[in-house]
């Protein structure tokens, strides 16, 4: 043990104090054999498990046999009551799901954790369970998923909804049956739950144009609390305007009303949407240009960057509309953020007269 400690210290120095920088797969897998020992040494096992997850996340190729052996070791750790270790187990299950065989053997353990009393387990257990489940098994946990979607704990609700979005790709007909619960979740007070559930509700109804239009009408009238959800609604509304042969003018009115939203994120999303629409008149895009101009004065680099990048795109189609922003754009030529400066210059080349570039 003494010599190995010396060795790791030397290794630490080489890697600038990062024990994870040069992990050797063979020795990590060797360490994971300790998972089978009883009693479980929590500290040691947590550390080995962290290393195992680390090497998988960093793309170390692991053979199926090795992965399966490590996975079965991980399942032994379920006997421990340590919260942190349990949370790392869920991470390991997700990381090993694609490289190991027979991962479904943890279904009942995960189902137990997802329906148990420990909130810190439930959300993460749902995410792990949905990662390993297939359509056939999904039916057996369907009841729990429906309950989780409308759970009052936002972590649980968001996890169930996001997992359902993943599941839409392989078991969409099962997820479609949860539309009522998803719709209920849209009225959640939690910003992220509202955002996730609105997105899932839309994806459940995406093929039914009439239903999508109804959804936009409904939620544009009773204001959504979550700025993220409003941004998503703008995206659906934009799609309706682009896809429909005879778009409803109230949909455009809704997007335009978002230019006066109290959240900067929503204002920018609405402005971006309006200038991206085909066949808009200069008078229709003017309010959006004004909103983008406001964003140009933001102290946040991300907001200035977003605004100038969008103006740059508009300048290709409507150079005259952007001319009103030339003075703001000129200030950006010396912006500390090089990307912003470059975008401003290329925009000015489209909109500016010679005089402004010379200035």
């Amino acid at each position: 043990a003494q010599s190995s400690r010396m060795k790791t210290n030397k290794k630490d120095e080489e890697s600038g104090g990062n024990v994870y920088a040069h992990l050797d797969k063979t020795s990590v897998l060797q360490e994971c054999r300790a998972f089978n020992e009883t009693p479980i040494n929590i500290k040691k096992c947590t550390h080995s498990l962290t290393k195992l997850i680390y090497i998988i996340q960093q793309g170390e190729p692991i053979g199926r046999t090795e992965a399966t052996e490590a996975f079965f070791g991980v399942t032994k750790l379920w006997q421990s009551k340590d919260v942190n270790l349990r949370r790392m187990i869920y991470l390991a299950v997700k990381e090993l799901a694609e490289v190991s065989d027979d991962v479904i053997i943890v279904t009942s353990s995960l189902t137990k954790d997802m329906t148990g009393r420990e909130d810190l387990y439930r959300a993460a257990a749902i995410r792990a369970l949905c990662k390993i489940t297939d359509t056939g098994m999904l039916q057996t946990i369907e009841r729990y998923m429906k309950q989780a979607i409308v759970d009052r704990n936002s972590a649980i609700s968001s996890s169930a909804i996001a997992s359902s979005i993943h599941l839409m790709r392989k078991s969409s007909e099962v997820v479609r049956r949860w539309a009522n619960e998803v719709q209920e979740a849209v009225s959640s007070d939690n910003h992220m739950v509202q955002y996730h559930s609105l997105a899932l509700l839309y994806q459940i109804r995406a093929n039914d144009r009439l239903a999508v239009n109804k959804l936009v009408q409904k939620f544009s009238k009773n204001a959504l609390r979550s700025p993220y959800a409003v941004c998503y609604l703008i995206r659906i509304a934009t799609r309706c305007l682009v896809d429909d042969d005879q778009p409803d003018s109230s949909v455009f009115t809704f997007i335009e009303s978002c230019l006066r939203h109290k959240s900067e994120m929503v204002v920018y999303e609405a402005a971006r949407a309006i200038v991206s629409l085909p066949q808009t008149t200069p008078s229709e895009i003017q309010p959006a240009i004004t909103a983008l101009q406001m964003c140009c004065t933001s102290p946040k680099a991300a907001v200035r960057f977003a605004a100038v990048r969008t103006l740059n795109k508009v300048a290709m189609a409507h150079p005259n509309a952007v001319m009103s922003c030339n003075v703001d754009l000129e200030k950006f030529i010396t912006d500390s953020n090089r990307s912003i400066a470059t975008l401003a210059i290329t925009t000015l080349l489209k909109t500016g007269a010679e005089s402004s570039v010379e200035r």
Partner: protein
Amino acid sequence: MADFDTNPTSLYSIKGIVILDQDGNRVVAKYYDRNTFGTVKEQKAFEKSLFSKTSRNTSADIVLLDGVTCLYRSNVDLYFYVLGSTRENELFLDATLTCLYDAVSVVLRKNVEKKALVDAMDTVMLIIDEICDEGIIMETDAQAVVQRSALKSDEVSFSDQSVSQLGFSFIESANKQFKWSLLK
């Protein structure tokens, strides 16, 4: 999951969350977009050019690189990156980066440095897992993220080794202070 680049109603807008050290070496990274970052080689190459673009200019915190919007923030010897689709609302990506930085900062007790981060690697992985799920932004509220990746009070006991190793438990420090106040 790079659906977002082609489908504006997709939720898969995060391509990766990366933390590098002052030499541009990877401390921890989680990639979600297999089309853009399918291989380790591609990831490392991207990190290299990302670092060379961002390490010189610490004032800027957003850059467009190879069709990816990268938001970043640095402290002492760490660089935090959120890589997102260029079609995603930059303010949403910005909120995600702020959440990542703040959550890590709370867990490391404001000591945002490489050594402290490496010591709390398991918790940092849990934080990343709470913020983003397969490319979907899960949470942008740092307080909620910390709560979800932290220990519960009734789980804390002094004989429990995992507490000291976790490097994060307000309850523990409060308990200690309480003990000291009794001893004084």
